[in-house]
């Protein structure tokens, strides 16, 4: 890590799951900061710096995006598609983190250029391990593009 504060964007409508993710990531000090959004629309507003998120200084672009697929207002796949169609955003790695194992969802996520597709494990130990690995891989080993 290069000393620059790492920002993770979590888009998750289930508050309990969001809490689980955030606590696990913070326990391992993987992320300096996590910004949590409960619906797709608000998340997009942030990324496109619309409305209350207009100032770039206080609303930096994330290093990695954790995205749930089933979201209110704007669906997760729609969010993914929008990000990957936007020149300034498409280089941000998007990791789909969802409860759905459906083949259709996996296929569609990759079709819209998801960088990774992860299914939330049922057991906590596995969940914890996944978050740990995720942190090491995407925020540690993985070389980030300059945004």
């Amino acid at each position, binding site marked *: 890590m290069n000393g620059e504060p790492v920002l993770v964007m979590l888009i998750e*409508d*289930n508050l*309990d*799951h969001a*809490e*689980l993710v955030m*606590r696990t990531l913070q326990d391992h000090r993987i992320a300096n900061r996590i910004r949590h959004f*409960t*619906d797709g629309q608000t998340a997009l507003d942030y990324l496109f710096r619309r409305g209350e998120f207009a100032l770039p200084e206080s609303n930096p672009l994330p290093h990695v995006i954790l995205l749930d697929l*089933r979201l*209110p*207002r704007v669906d997760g796949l729609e969010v993914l598609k929008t990000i990957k169609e936007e020149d300034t955003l498409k280089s941000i790695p998007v990791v789909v983190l*969802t*409860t*759905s*194992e*459906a083949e259709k969802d996996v296929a569609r996520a990759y079709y819209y250029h998801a960088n990774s597709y992860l299914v*939330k*494990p*049922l*057991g*906590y*130990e596995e*969940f*914890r391990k996944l978050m740990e690995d995720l942190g090491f891989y995407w925020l540690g080993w993985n070389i980030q593009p300059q945004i």
Partner: protein
Amino acid sequence: MFQSIRRFLSAPVFENNTEETLRARHLIIIIHAVFLSTLTYTILIPIFAPQLMPHMGLIIPMYPVIVTLYWLVHIRKIRAASWVMVTGVWLVLFISAALSGGTQAPAFAGNVIVILSAAVLIDYSCAVWFAVLSAAGGLLMILGESAGYLPYASQQLNTPFSNWLVEIIYFTVGIALVYMATENIRFALQRAQNELSRRQQMELNIKEQGDFAIQVMNELGQGVTVIGRDAKYQYVNSAFARMIDYDPLHLIGKSPYDIVLPDDYPVVGQALNERRQGKTSTHEARLKKSTGEVVHALITGVPRIQNGKYEGAITVITDLTRQKQIENEQGELLAKMNLRNLQLFTAAEVSRAASSMLDLDTLMPKVVELIRDHFNYYYVGLFLVDGEQDLAVLRAATGDMGIKMLEAGHALELNEFSMIGWCIVHKEPRIALDVGKDAVRFKNPILPLTRSEVALPLISRGNVIGAMTIQSSEPAAFSGEDITNLQTMVEQVANAIENARLLTERAILIKELESRNLELERFTYTVSHDLRSPLITMRGFVSFLMEDAASGDMERLQKDVNRIVNATEKMQQLLNELLELSRVGRVMNPTQDVPFGSIVEEALERVRGQLENRRVKVIVQENLPIVRGDPTRLIEVVQNLADNAAKFMGDQSQPLVEIGGSGIGSDGYATFFVRDNGVGIEPKFHERIFGLFDKLDTQSAGTGVGLALVKRIIEVHGGKIWVESAGKGGSTFYFSLPAKTA
């Protein structure tokens, strides 16, 4: 050698020309005679009459002449040889006469022989010429003698012996000539005889032919008559007499008018006139048999014209009765075949229509139109049995009158009071005709022109599924045979209708199965997804509990316990609702007629608490229609919709929910609505909201099963549900349910 000399000396034979052959024979005889006498002279003169030796100068040149003559005959120049011979002999005789005694010389008498030869060998006129020539020669010699030019003429060189010798020669030649003349006459007689017998043979032949012709005419299959100038029969053959069943002898002297039907007199008169003008006429006429029956006949008359005068006619009569009969039979057969063809064609069309149209509402009108158009019937109607109401309901009918009756919902009871009812009850076709002693009067005011009707049962796989009525404006349009054929066709129609029905049922089943399948897929998907969520939460926070306990953070411990409890409750609720949803359709209370007003009342009673909490005003329309369905489920529908409306009121200061109906459609379904003035739903979510667990707002209460359940209940009742909302100013949920049939 001998053979060739003989051939050279003999007369040639001219085939197919007896006259010429004869002439050649005569010529050769004379040449022989001349040759013989010349030879005799040559031998005898030096012995017996040496004083005649000067004549030898005349005799010797005869030999080349004789050889030339033989040669000419040999090369068949008979006429030329004749001329040379006659002329040569005459010249020799003339010169010898001139040299020895003039007119008194025996040579001069020889002219007679020359003249006769000319007559026999050449012709009569030639003989005359030689006679004149000889006379003139004699006169010339007498004159020459008296003038002293002929010194030898007066010399009496002849002796009695030489004269005798010459005369002997003349006798011989004379006999030969007489023989020839006789032969000529015999030949002419022979020819005359031949000609006579030839003519006799010819006459005999003509008579035989005539007899044969009469025999042929008598034996001929066709009638032959000979009519005189007075238009009376002079001859009739036996075939004609047989044709009209008369004795041939009785017909002689009768006229065609005696045997032709009076209706055909003009035709016969015209034919007679034409023949008088010398024209051949052909016409048809009906003849009366002696037994009174009628014979159709074709009569061709040929006029007999002799010396430019009309002498009557010969007619040939052909019996057309059988032919006419066959023509009529063929005509009937053809008409039958045409009808049968038409029926087959229509049947084929109907089958094609049936196989290409799987939709009853297209098939049935097409079938009735096809049948009516092809047979030019007045009206065709198709009834199907409505098992529930014991009625035969008109389902398709032709023309404007058909439309009228269809609109009026024309139906007949299944009893013997109507033809349709009768034929459905008895499974048999029935005819009613406006003719004969059982004449039926048709009284349907919409079908005023009907004069005959046939009702045919529609039987498919042994079951009567309806009946077809075919009506005609002709009083006796249907025969037993027609009905057999129509019945065959109608059976195809029945099968087609049954097939279409089964296909429709099958299509509905397939559609239902597909939607069930889709729902099941969605169900497994959501179960795996949505049931996982609380599990993940529970297991995650249970692990945190230990950390909380270890760190002594009791506040966080309390919060985490709450999360676990909530997740458990949520899971419980989810499982209940899933169970509930799966029960819909599987477990149904009996369908009954319920006033929709009472359903609304009961539903509102159940959500009264929520409505009052949010101060929602509810307006319910009065006199809502009666619907057919499961009341318990229908109450759940209204309850869910009202609850939802109350839930998504947002910051509306005067929350209002309206419940009402918007009428009954032609398909027998009543449409209802539940309207609110809450937050509304954006159009892009209008489909999603009915999906299982698809909550638009995660923060709001509920599991996301509610609207899916509502949709399921409505669909189980055969209805539809949809939402109308602009995204602001509230939303209206519409749904249709089967209304109670009147």
